[in-house]
């Protein structure tokens, strides 16, 4: 069964450093998402992406965040200058349906900012 893959599974960084989280969505999907989950809390929407443009973004997704689909397979989330409060599990997801009801999630990247 096709799946969304994320790398790395764990990322440790110093505050103020840039990080790039990588995702390979399911190949025939056209809609891509990033969510994050702080330990023990709910899954929070960050951004949705379609046709090389951001479709929707949350208040969390400020100027420090950016997304990119650099080629036909990868979808990346960049945090330019990490803060302690960026520590969370970051999930990439993709879907084939417009509107994003049935999302397929990766296993996540645990980001720890020290």
């Amino acid at each position, binding site marked *: 069964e096709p799946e969304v893959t994320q790398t790395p599974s764990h990322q440790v960084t110093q505050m103020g450093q840039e990080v790039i989280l990588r995702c390979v969505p399911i190949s025939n999907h056209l809609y891509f998402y990033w969510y994050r989950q702080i330990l023990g809390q709910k*899954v929070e929407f960050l951004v949705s992406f379609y046709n090389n443009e951001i479709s929707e973004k949350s208040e969390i997704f400020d100027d420090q965040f950016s997304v990119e689909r650099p080629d036909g397979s990868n979808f990346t989330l960049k945090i330019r200058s990490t803060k302690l409060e960026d520590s969370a599990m970051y*999930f990439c997801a993709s879907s084939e349906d417009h*509107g994003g*009801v049935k999302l397929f999630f990766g296993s996540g990247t645990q980001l720890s900012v020290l």
Partner: protein
Amino acid sequence: GESVGLHLPTLSVQEGDNSIINCAYSNSASDYFIWYKQESGKGPQFIIDIRSNMDKRQGQRVTVLLNKTVKHLSLQIAATQPGDSAVYFCAENILSASKIIFGSGTRLSIRP
């Protein structure tokens, strides 16, 4: 603001019994309501959805009920198995918004 939330943070059921997980919502504009399951160390996994103009939908061992009068959503799992142990999230979707919003999770644990 957040409009999807769950009544109880934890639920413990006997293996083989039916489980019922409840959720309240406040946004009447949602087009779909969805249930996701999250096992330890994994991302959320889609279980079932229901369009806002329906009141019941059945899947394999799962049934979702939607009561728009009281803005209540429930997930029923028949003959609960150890593999059903997970955190269950209800979520809502407005198709034009291109996103789903998750509520707080309910942890389902199974007693042998």
